[in-house]
């Protein structure tokens, strides 16, 4: 019986060692392990995993090819629906999606779909690109804004359909949040990300970096002067939020975006690079999401004693279980049910401590989670040298504010319908720029959906 085999554990770097380096935490499966794990799939008649995948990857079909040893075919099956297998296999919240719905998970452990997807993605990087058919040119030109997951996915689908596609990237490197936000130890940049970007370029997609749409060019100038027939906005949610508490502008208080951008995009952890970053001391990270985990684990690797401060309990941590588990293994301290009231500085205006108050959980709020309530008189201080605010991000208003007739929501998101059409004809949008901060796979799904809608629009 296939389901008698326990889930094949994945090899990982020793926590004590990895807490001091930026090498990848998880080594992934080898062929033997992947085949054993793949053999656990029950090949359900109505696979719930597929229904719970935002891009409907034919999961049992690619898994079947792994058991047969035809990894090239498995890669082809995945690439029909996703072009970022190596990325999504690493960063998707599978426990809430495919794996969360796997029938084996009801009584035991679900199939490790994410690890299998990663295995296939990495295999195809190592063994030559998966063959992709590109349609002959249809004479249409599309501009894609942003080279994150939404933009890359949209650009790839449009290029496959025969469009001439150019991606405009504001930063100096393509990949969006996958290069500036997610750390090297979760998603290797040269080994994986650069190759994923190369795959998209191989379809004929051109990427121009250092172009800030809304400043260097505008959507109107792309449509009117540069001759693009349609535009896709996948500019993400890059604006960091702060708490608005006293002391937030002291030296040593940074947004998670700043800290991670310095470490990831600018390689500040590598002494060969010029960008500075704070190393050592004690670092408090405020927040409980995946970005908070990325920041705190990066701080740890830079030699800090690192803490998470979160106002609810561990139960409510929005970060993936795997990330929390990895963080704990690496020696991160979790201070749950406490909320910063003020950041206190020394005589030079450099962070000295965070003044917090203990919280308790009350009735559930509109998010369904129990509302944290301050416990009166429970204030205390955590001494530290650096405070990193990981409170979430919102869409950057730069594009919306410089484009005529582009509607936005109260929270700054671009208004788009279910296929990505905005209030402006010929302008489509998807991913975090529309929804606010969400996941890589949802952004990729939105990019693909919009590509379909753009092709229909261009055919009109």
């Amino acid at each position, binding site marked *: 019986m296939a389901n008698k085999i326990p889930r094949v554990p994945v090899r990982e770097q020793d926590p004590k060692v990895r807490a001091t380096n930026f090498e990848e935490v998880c080594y992934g499966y080898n062929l033997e392990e992947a085949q054993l794990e793949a053999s656990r799939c029950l090949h359900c008649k109505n696979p719930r995993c597929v229904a719970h995948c935002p891009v409907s990857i034919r999961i049992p079909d690619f898994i079947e090819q792994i058991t047969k040893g035809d990894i090239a075919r498995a890669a082809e099956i995945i690439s029909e629906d996703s072009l970022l297998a190596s990325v999504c296999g690493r960063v998707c919240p599978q426990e809430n999606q495919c794996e969360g719905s796997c029938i084996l998970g009801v009584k035991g452990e679900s199939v490790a779909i994410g690890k299998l997807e990663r295995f296939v993605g990495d295999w195809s990087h190592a063994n030559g690109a998966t063959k992709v058919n590109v349609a002959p040119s249809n004479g249409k030109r599309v501009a894609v804004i942003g080279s994150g997951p939404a933009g890359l996915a949209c650009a790839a689908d449009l290029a496959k359909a025969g469009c001439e596609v150019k991606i405009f990237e*504001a*930063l*100096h490197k393509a990949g969006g949040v996958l290069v*500036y936000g997610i750390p090297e130890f979760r998603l290797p940049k040269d080994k994986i990300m650069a190759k994923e970007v190369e795959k998209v370029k191989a379809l004929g997609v051109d990427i121009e*970096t*250092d*172009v*800030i749409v809304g*400043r*260097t*060019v505008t959507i109107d100038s792309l449509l009117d002067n540069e001759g693009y027939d349609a535009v896709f906005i996948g500019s993400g949610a*890059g*604006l*960091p939020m*702060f708490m*608005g508490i006293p002391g*937030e*502008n002291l*030296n*040593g208080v*940074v*947004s998670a*975006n*700043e800290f991670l*951008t*310095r470490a990831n995009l*600018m*390689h500040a952890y590598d002494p*060969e*690079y*010029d*960008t*500075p970053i*704070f*190393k*050592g*001391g*004690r670092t408090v990270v405020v927040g409980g999401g995946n970005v908070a985990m990325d920041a705190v684990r990066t701080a740890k690797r830079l030699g800090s*004693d690192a803490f998470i401060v979160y106002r609810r309990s561990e139960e409510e941590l929005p970060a993936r279980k795997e990330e929390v588990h990895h963080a704990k293994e690496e020696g991160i301290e979790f201070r749950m049910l406490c909320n910063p009231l003020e950041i206190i500085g020394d005589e*030079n*205006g*450099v962070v000295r401590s965070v003044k917090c108050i203990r919280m308790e959980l009350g009735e559930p709020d509109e998010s369904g989670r129990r509302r944290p309530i301050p416990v009166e008189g429970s204030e205390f201080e955590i*001494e530290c*040298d*650096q405070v990193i605010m990981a409170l979430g991000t919102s869409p*950057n*208003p*730069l594009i919306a504010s410089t484009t005529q007739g582009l509607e936005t929501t109260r929270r700054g998101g671009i208004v788009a319908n279910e296929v990505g059409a905005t209030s402006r004809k010929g302008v489509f949008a998807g991913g975090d720029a529309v929804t606010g901060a969400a996941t890589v796979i949802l952004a990729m799904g939105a990019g693909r959906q919009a590509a379909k809608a753009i092709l229909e629009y261009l055919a009109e």
Partner: protein
Amino acid sequence: MFKILEKKQLTTDITLMRIDAPRVAAAAKPGQFVIVRVDEKGERIPLTIADYDAAQGSVTIVIQAIGSSTKKLCAYAEGDSICDFAGPLGHPSEFVAEDPAALADKRFLFVAGGVGAAPVYPQVKWLSEHGIKADVIIGAKNAETMIMADQMRAVAGNLYIATDDGSAGYKGLVTGLMSELIEKEGKQYDQVVAIGPLIMMKFVALTAGKYSLPIIVSMNPLMVDGTGMCGACRVTVDGKTRFACVEGPEFDGSKVDFDEAMRRSRQYRDLEERARKIAEERAAGHKCKIGLDK
């Protein structure tokens, strides 16, 4: 890659470079800045735009070699290329969008300190091209460190010079010269714009306040991306936190918290200093009484 079309040494540590950047040149307006990354290992550094020519597709920057990154950039030669040149960033100066009729009667006084003469130049030039002759004060330590006086003279109404040692023009600070122009020469202004070191902008703002003159300053804080993503450039204006990169760089100088800005400009020097101390104390086995070693 972006080619250095022209390089000129303005003073011993100030260099002018004209960069081939057609997109930036076509979009640039007075008051905006660029982010430059010299090579693959370089920092992203914000630099003000000193001039731009859409027809030639070139943008001029003026760099003072003070840190390791600016020194690295200044070591590049004419004909070399730099990795990245992104912009224009930030909002253009307010007057660019003002009603030309209302603008025509406005009497501007620009106060430029040190390398701040570079970003003042395109503003004065733009006004001149629109029929407005603005007065300009350039302040410098001495005649040798003063830059862009000749170009400025060609586009300004009156150009006044102030040097600390009196080796050119008025002997003293720009604020002293500013007071003299207003009080002794009876000059009248409707708008003061100050660009230069934070300490200078702080005192020009105070002087402008003394004469009830509106004052605009251009902030040049630490930045990483320059597009609103990192928040390193936080500036407190009128008690509120603003991102200088996307909401500035120009703000109402009477409302800027300059003391905080000066402190924030040394952020990484402070943190490096603290990191060094902690490492030293740890190495020495010292038990820190204030908890830095925990």
